């Protein structure tokens, strides 16, 4: 194990962690306030990437692509809430998952219809396409650092909004006692629309950040949403702090597991067995972690107070 590889893998894990957090933030807030479970949240991740990609193609600037992509994704989230999600709050969770499963089909096919079946490659701007060399043999792509910085900045901003502002206060109050907040004269529906749309936009940002590396593709949202669920189960559903810690844990364990599990297993078993077993186990690692957390603490690591 050489140091530069370990550092690269740690950064990859961090990157996955912050992206997961951006997806989870909206998911967990929406669940916290309205008890609503949204399978189609991953679709906003995908739509963000496509919106950003399209604007980038037109304007030839990734920065403008991101800046315009955010309000565009916000608008899609807003319309989704207005047309479908709003009618589902009073229903049970089975109806939530079914209707939002339908939304996934609509969004995926809609993207297919508009942008075609192939993925959309988004070029990285030159000012981000460089490398940082903090030491002789350590090479870090600038863009990875940029993703982590943006992710942490959004996390910090969210923390500020949720803990220090009036809107954040209402969100927290809504999460602990919705009826009481309503009785005090707060329009909780408007608040929820706001949170839903903002959550969609934040998930969209994650999609935008990853798209220059992996390119925008139709299945991307459906892959990340399950891991996002694992994160918020580990962190405690409804807790933004839990989502943050959970996302970093899952991001790091998944990345490091894929790189180093075979070496770790070789300590216990023959090299050949280790190399066969490692890929399968590392692919299942975060789910096993989830199972362990649940076995010990079914409510997650940081369950929100008063539920």
């Amino acid at each position, binding site marked *: 194990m050489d140091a530069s590889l370990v550092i690269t893998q740690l950064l990859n894990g961090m990157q996955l962690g912050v992206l997961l957090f951006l997806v989870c933030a909206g998911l967990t807030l929406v669940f916290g306030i309205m008890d609503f479970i949204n399978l189609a949240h991953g679709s906003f991740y995908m739509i963000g990437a496509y919106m950003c990609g399209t604007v980038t193609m037109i304007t030839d600037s990734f920065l403008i692509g991101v800046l315009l992509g955010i309000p565009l994704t916000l608008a899609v989230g807003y319309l989704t809430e207005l047309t479908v999600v709003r009618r589902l709050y009073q229903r049970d969770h089975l109806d939530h998952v079914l209707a939002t499963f339908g939304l996934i089909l609509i969004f995926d096919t809609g993207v297919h219809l508009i942008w075609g079946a192939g993925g959309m490659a988004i070029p990285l701007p030159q000012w981000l396409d460089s490398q940082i060399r903090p030491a002789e043999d350590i090479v870090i792509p600038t863009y990875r650092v940029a993703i982590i910085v943006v992710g942490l900045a959004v996390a910090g901003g969210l923390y500020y909004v949720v803990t220090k502002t009036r809107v954040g206060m209402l969100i927290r109050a809504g999460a602990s006692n919705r009826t009481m907040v309503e009785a005090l004269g707060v329009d909780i529906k408007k608040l929820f629309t706001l949170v839903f749309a903002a959550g969609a936009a934040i998930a969209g940002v994650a999609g935008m950040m990853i798209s220059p590396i992996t390119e925008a593709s139709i299945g991307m949202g459906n892959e990340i949403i399950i891991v996002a669920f694992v994160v918020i189960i580990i962190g405690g559903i409804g807790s933004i702090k839990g989502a943050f810690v959970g996302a970093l844990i899952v991001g790091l364990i998944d990345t490091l597991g894929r790189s180093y599990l075979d070496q770790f297993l070789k300590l216990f078993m023959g090299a050949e067995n280790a190399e066969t077993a490692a890929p*399968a186990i590392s692919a299942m690692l975060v*789910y096993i972690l989830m199972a362990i957390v*649940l076995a010990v603490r079914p409510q997650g690591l940081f369950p929100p107070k008063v539920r």
Partner: protein
Amino acid sequence: MSSRPNSIFSAPRWLIIGVVVMVLLAFAPPIIEALDQAFWLDVFTRMLILSIAAASLNLILGFGGMVSFGHAAFLGIGAYAVGIPAYYDEYSGFLHILLAVACAALYALITGAISLRTKGVHFIMITMAFGQMMFYGFVSLEEYGGDDGLIIYERSNFGDLIDMYDDTTFYYVCLVSLAVVLFIVHRLVNSRFGMVVKGSKSNERRMGALGFPTYRYRLTAYVISGAICGYAGALLGNFTEFISPEMMDWTRSGELIFMVVLGGTATIFGPVYGVLAFLVIEEILSAITTYWHLIFGLLLVLVVLFVQGGIAGLLRRWFSKKKEAV
């Protein structure tokens, strides 16, 4: 159970409709042969297999209130229980079925023991995550084809008893299996065991206070459901002669839930109607446009928003209205 006073009299009605549908299904192969539409025999065989899977899901989802979003994993386990022995030239059908049911039940026992510690949304997401865990697990098993899947070169061998290669025979194997499964589900939900499971759905705390260890009852129901679905998976593996992890993707589980809800949860024949409607809609829509998933998604949202009780519910309302008119 409906609380309407005429529910005792309407009870045989659903049974009559259901039996009529099953009898019609029994006449499907000669009719299809007469019309020379061999393709539809495939569609109907697939429908029967998926009906078994949907019925197993309905047992816990409809009657037990446990929304499992990972049921496709059981189908996959069942199919791999045919594929992996076949990969090692072991074609005994009895072994395949035994393996499929046992492995699915074991997987249900382990994941159920953990998932059932939670409720509601947690349960949905956890079953989903476990399903996806199996998906990724099989994707990374390069030995058995990984992502590309595994071709089953020979179907299960039952000696002289059943010829799985005869399409009509295979169809009747599936039909009889479905009938037996529906009968088992019917007997189960009306037994003392079923009453406890249904009671836990409406009020688990009360059932606990009455002295029932609800966790154990629910786990048993979950394992039975998984075992039945594993059996359906073994049939599916024989039918498609190919298995890939894609069969266990979480979107497949979502489709299974939609089938159950479309047909009507907590009804005996609901899953059969649901799967039938699902496959017919799929065949028709996909013939019209390549973008049929868009219409399908819209339909799903509309069904959730506006059709309560699924097809079985519609039938029941339709028949009870007729009765009032008379």
